[in-house]
């Protein structure tokens, strides 16, 4: 973004007259607004995908009346929720009640800023991009516990308690699995990580050795759990806790929770695609110009995200829900040991690659 902006300023004499700070500000606000609309629409269409996908799996149709094939269904839902009465329970803690959905959504949304959608298509190309995404997504838990507490409803409190237990636990296998890739790639910069995976399917991190392969699955499972997706949807388990931590939320505030949830799904799918599945790398060389390749890469990345989203939806509509103690068991006794094994294993793999003479195999093992 910066480099692109600098280039733009240099090429235009008119822009050079303006103060650079203002330009950056305008550009950043524009980028933020674009990302907001982009992620909201994407989240809305994910809802559509979920409902239609669920319909296919359940031998029914799903929304198909609003817009072509029901594509505008999310728009109707959003408009309706916007125009609903906004109820804040009289016994609720009003400030926290208002703040909670914003925090939840912001946690998921800000992460998009450091995600590279293609080579150079990134708002903030940071050296600590991965670190930033993981820490921002953990903010969500604060919003959820605020929501549960402020609602002054027992179901909501119980939901947020479950959420906190689950999120805080699953942060560990999630972060450690991602760490395995960081050890392999030697960088926290997401763009660099993708660039190192280019050149062929076998270069994708998921295929670089058995440990990375296992790490992909521990990451995926931990991702499902931190997203509160079935079979880990305990914080909002409908048959147990009515609607979990957002039981008392109406209208637009509920919409923001909803949006934040789906934005989180997209964000984590993007992250998984970038970390393990080669990001925008199509997996085989394409005879295209660099500029065209960049946008084809964007579509490739979106395709991978789509597949990951579909798998999540597929899992959700197939499996029953875990029980809270089993969820904790899975985290601490299965996922955490395995992810640690992955990190140690990959560190050994990198050491082995150092000992080997330079060559293709060493590079493949090393991850670069």
């Amino acid at each position: 973004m910066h480099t692109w902006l600098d280039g733009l300023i240099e090429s235009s004499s008119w822009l050079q007259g303006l103060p650079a700070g203002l330009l950056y500000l305008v550009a950043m606000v524009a980028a933020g607004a674009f990302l907001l609309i982009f992620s909201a629409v994407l989240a809305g269409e994910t809802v559509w995908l979920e409902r239609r996908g669920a319909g296919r799996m359940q031998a029914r149709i799903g929304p198909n009346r609003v817009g072509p094939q029901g594509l505008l269904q999310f728009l109707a839902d959003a408009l309706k929720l916007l125009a609903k009465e906004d109820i804040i329970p009289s016994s609720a803690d009003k400030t926290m009640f208002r703040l909670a959905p914003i925090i939840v959504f912001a946690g998921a949304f800000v992460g998009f800023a450091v995600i590279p959608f293609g080579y150079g298509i990134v708002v903030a190309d940071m050296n600590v991009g991965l670190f930033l995404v993981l820490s921002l997504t953990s903010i969500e838990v604060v919003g959820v516990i605020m929501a549960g507490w402020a609602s002054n409803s027992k179901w909501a409190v119980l939901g947020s308690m479950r959420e906190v237990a689950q999120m805080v636990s699953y942060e560990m296998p999630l972060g450690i699995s991602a760490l395995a890739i960081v050890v392999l790639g030697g960088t926290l910069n997401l763009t660099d990580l993708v660039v190192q995976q280019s050149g062929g399917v076998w270069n994708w991190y998921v295929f670089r050795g058995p440990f990375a392969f296992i790490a992909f699955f521990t990451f995926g499972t931990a991702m499902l759990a931190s997203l509160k997706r079935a079979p880990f949807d305990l914080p909002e388990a409908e048959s147990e806790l009515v609607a979990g931590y957002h039981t008392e939320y109406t209208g637009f505030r509920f919409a923001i929770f909803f949006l934040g949830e789906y934005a989180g799904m997209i964000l984590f799918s993007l992250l998984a695609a970038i970390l393990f599945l080669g990001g925008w790398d199509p997996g085989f060389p394409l005879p295209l110009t660099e500029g065209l390749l960049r946008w084809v890469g964007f579509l490739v990345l979106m395709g991978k995200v789509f597949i990951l989203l579909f798998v999540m939806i597929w899992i959700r509509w197939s499996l029953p829900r875990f029980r809270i103690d089993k969820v904790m068991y899975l985290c601490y006794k299965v996922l955490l040991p395995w992810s640690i094994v992955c990190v140690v294993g990959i560190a050994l793999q990198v050491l082995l690659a150092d000992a080997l003479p330079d060559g293709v195999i060493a590079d493949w093992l090393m991850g670069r």
Partner: protein
Amino acid sequence: MSPRAESTSTGEVHEGQPLVGRDLRTEELVFNMGPQHPATHGVLRVVIKSDGEVVRSLEPHIGNLHRSSEKIGEELPYYQWLPYVDRWDYLAAMNNEHVACMAIERLGGLEVPERAEYIRIIVAEVQRILSHLMAIGVYGLDLGAFTPFLHQFRERERGLDLLDHIAGARLLYHYVRIGGVKRDVSKEWIDELEVFLDAVEKRLPDYNTLLLHNHIFQERTCGIGVIDREVAVRWGVTGPALRAAGVSWDTRRDAPYSIYDRFEFDVPVGPSPIAGVAGDCFARHWLRVREVTESVKIVRQALGQMPEGPVMARVPKSYKPPVGEVYVRGENPRGELATYMVSEGKDRAYRIRCRGPSFSNIAVITEVSEGLLLGDLVAMIGSLDIVLGEVDR
């Protein structure tokens, strides 16, 4: 009530001392589950006293659907009262009608034509299949699996269509009448029924893949909510819940009513050979799945044996059974439905009392639910498969 007031912990925490029980003041959390709650299968209200997620004690509150059908039975002639019977256990209307008609007929010593008996058995067993399908699907819903619920509806709709064709209604039929059944079944209907039975048999393995053999499902249900033999009998639990506890009792086999003694069928008894222990949620679910196949067997046999003939006995227009009492029980999908009827020689009953199986089945949760997690409680209530219509009547 405010959660803040109830779950706040106060007191100082000293180093080296265990946190809970010494200085940390904890209080019981009182939950009010229902009457509008997705897992209470209607309008059951359960007041739970819990320690966080762990249920300490609970009390079910019923009566939100009390529709006074016993009083109506004293006010209306027998034949007018019959439709109300459908609405006891609205998922098993045919079975209800069957038992109620038997009671009324026994009161007046009416003989039902042979063919009508067979048709009654057929529709009752089809209804049992449909009811069990619903129970299987809804149990998945309780445990967070949506898809089996919607899949079973595909077969259920075919079965409902079948009953719709002979009775003219999808859910509450008023098909079994005093002295027989409303109308005869046609050859085409029987063909359709056979197609339906094949479809059910073909689809059952699909549901089992989604639920019965699913690892998460087994973890959620095996060893959870155990109602053992002694507790079940003491509380008057009947039906699949009783058999899951290891009591080999099926009214159809052990006290055969109607013409059930003419059919060969197994009475599966818990525990399930797949997993779990006797009387747990898994055994109850497994039993329902097994009973579907047994019902299919009964229907096939009945179709093979069914004679030609009339389907309605000669019943006087104003049916006045002599003074007397009867107590008739039959095996409903949810347990033993029993009717106690007192006649004073009028065209309406003097007193009607219905024993809805769910009434006793749900009462037992007061005893067995202690120490369950909240999620287990949902699994427990779901596995009892109650219908509030017959709990409250």
